[in-house]
């Protein structure tokens, strides 16, 4: 097995607010393979963004990485990000690890031209003249398929549509050839057709630049299109982790099953009501006891209320060892569901 790019072990990131400690990320472990894409999926508020911001170390007070490790493997060197001095971390940001965000409309500085914002990133990490940095900016705009890049580089963000701004963000993020691109819901705020274009673009650029992508989404469609591995998060924890095809063929955790059931599918008639998971994501200030999903789980039993499960390989013959799940009764539920499918 080749060396991964990023290996997160037992990460815990908490916010020490006036109302109490918000445990936004609890004991999360995941691996971002080199040159591949890891998808992080889950409902809003389950800790995806905080996980991503922990990697690039942009958690601001009252937030803090409490424990755990984030190892970044760069040219055979192992860099521990959680303890890296801030000045060193700053050199990593933008050059090794880049990030794009959900809100393309507000993520660019309105008072600077898009070209200068890209060129600034280039000059920050490379000893080049401003002319060269500008040329690089134009080249990057061209690579993200913005027509007439030469001219548009000297325009301001408000001259661009949402989709175009997200392209600018991608151009900026990739301008220094990062090893890792974190894309936090990059297409959520966009129209469906524009969404597809942005995702296509990201995939093509991954082929060209060879970077790893950590893509965050609540949309399994995006996962299906982009991810190689999938990590499902619920209430600050990883509840299921598997290669994408495996997860789509054998979702094991009741929460993952719920996500699939609530997906609109092209086959289903439009007006048919989607089955949504009942209830809402609990607030980190008032997490339930035991398994945090039990109040919303159709299969919950007494044990689930008392005992928190561990992330483990299920004892099922058809499941490969790369598939782990955070549920006491994954095997029983799988058998129950299989039986239900057969009886139909």
């Amino acid at each position, binding site marked *: 097995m080749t060396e991964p790019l990023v290996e997160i072990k037992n990460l815990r990131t908490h916010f020490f607010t006036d109302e109490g400690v918000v445990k936004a990320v609890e004991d999360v472990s995941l691996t971002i393979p080199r040159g591949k894409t890891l998808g992080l999926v889950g409902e809003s508020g389950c800790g995806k963004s905080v996980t991503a911001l922990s990697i690039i170390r*942009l958690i601001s007070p009252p937030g803090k990485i409490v424990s755990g490790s984030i190892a970044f493997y760069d040219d055979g060197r192992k860099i521990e990000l959680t303890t890296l001095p801030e000045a060193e971390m700053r050199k990593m*940001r*933008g050059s090794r690890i*880049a990030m794009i*965000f959900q809100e393309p409309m507000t993520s660019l*500085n309105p008072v600077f031209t898009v070209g200068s914002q890209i060129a600034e990133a280039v000059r920050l990490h490379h000893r080049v003249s401003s002319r060269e940095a500008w040329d690089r900016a134009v080249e990057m705009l061209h690579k993200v398929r913005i027509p007439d890049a030469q001219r548009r580089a000297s325009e301001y963000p*408000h001259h661009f549509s949402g989709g175009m701004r997200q392209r600018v*963000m991608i151009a*900026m993020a990739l301008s220094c050839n990062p090893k890792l691109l974190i894309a936090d819901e990059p297409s959520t705020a966009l129209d469906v057709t524009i969404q597809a274009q942005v995702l296509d673009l990201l995939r093509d650029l991954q082929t060209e630049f060879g970077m790893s992508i950590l893509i965050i989404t609540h949309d399994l469609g995006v996962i299906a299109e982009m991810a190689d591995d999938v990590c499902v998060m619920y209430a600050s924890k990883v509840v299921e982790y598997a290669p994408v095809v495996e997860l789509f063929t054998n979702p094991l955790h009741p929460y993952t099953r719920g996500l699939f059931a609530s997906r609109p599918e092209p086959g289903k008639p439009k007006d048919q009501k989607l089955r949504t998971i009942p209830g809402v994501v609990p607030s980190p200030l008032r997490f339930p006891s035991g398994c945090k999903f039990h109040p919303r789980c159709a299969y919950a039993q007494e044990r689930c209320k008392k005992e928190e499960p561990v992330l483990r390989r299920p004892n099922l013959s058809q499941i490969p060892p790369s598939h782990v799940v955070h549920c006491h009764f994954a095997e029983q539920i799988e058998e129950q569901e299989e039986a239900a499918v057969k009886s139909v």
Partner: protein
Amino acid sequence: MLQYLVRRMLWGLLTLLLITFVIYGLIRFMPGDPALLKLYQESSDKKITAEQIEQQRKMYGLDQPFYIAYVKWLGDVLTGNLQTSFAYKAPVSSVIGERIGRTLMLTINSLILEYLLAIPLGLYFTARSSRLDERSGSMLLFMLYSLPSFCGALFLQLWFAVYLEWLPLHGMQSDNYEQLSTLGKTWDLFKHALLPVAAFTYGGLAYYSRFLKATMNETVRQDYIRTARAKGIGPLKVLCWHAFRNSLIPLVTQIGLTLPALLSGAIILERIFSWPGIGTLFFQSILERDYPIIMGLVLMFSILTLLGQLLADVLYAFVDPRVSYK
């Protein structure tokens, strides 16, 4: 842009006409007759005949209804003549011209000081948000902001002039001013100006630094600041370039408002410091019902206010690329 400015300018002129007309009317209906006042001051035996009054009123143009007098005043102004002061018996323009430099000496210096100090202070407090020095500094600024300038002026006088005796209490020049060398004159003027400038400055300083800090607090929470940090930009550059550049937008609209304050702020403080500038003149001319001087000053304030708004518009378009006047 140009077209927009011309349109604004035309509206401004219309406003100007309205303001001066209303004020002209108000002055004329103020109790007190300048003709009578003048005759009373000038006669030795305090016996004044109705004939004399009639004559004096005619000389001042008070025999006509105010709207006719206003039209005459307007006509004079358009030919560049601000009429003659009742009290000084000299052209209004030369009476004002003689004093305006003294006022601007105080107010321009204090404006420069305000911005020069408020910007670094506002940025520093943003960077140190919620720390002990920021908390106590902000508290102090708030207290200064709430302290009326005439109170502050009195404290300054008490402390530095009466108690410590470091600086002159009031006035613009020492008695021996004429005998001093050029350097001595400058030093003398500097010493006299120090307290008034301090009294002018502290309120604005407190206001602008608090304003800047409030805007900056808003700006640093924006998504593009997170983007800048994600690029690997250091905290100082994020603050002073990416965030400050955006906070400049609301700040410049404030600059327009300060233009009329260059003169209006002087009225009370010049009285306290016996500074022979525009403020003192304004005060006196109201007491003496010196209509042409009052109108001349009103005209100047109004023009400055309108110019201030125009300036704010221009600066606004200059610092915010999203603004275009069409």
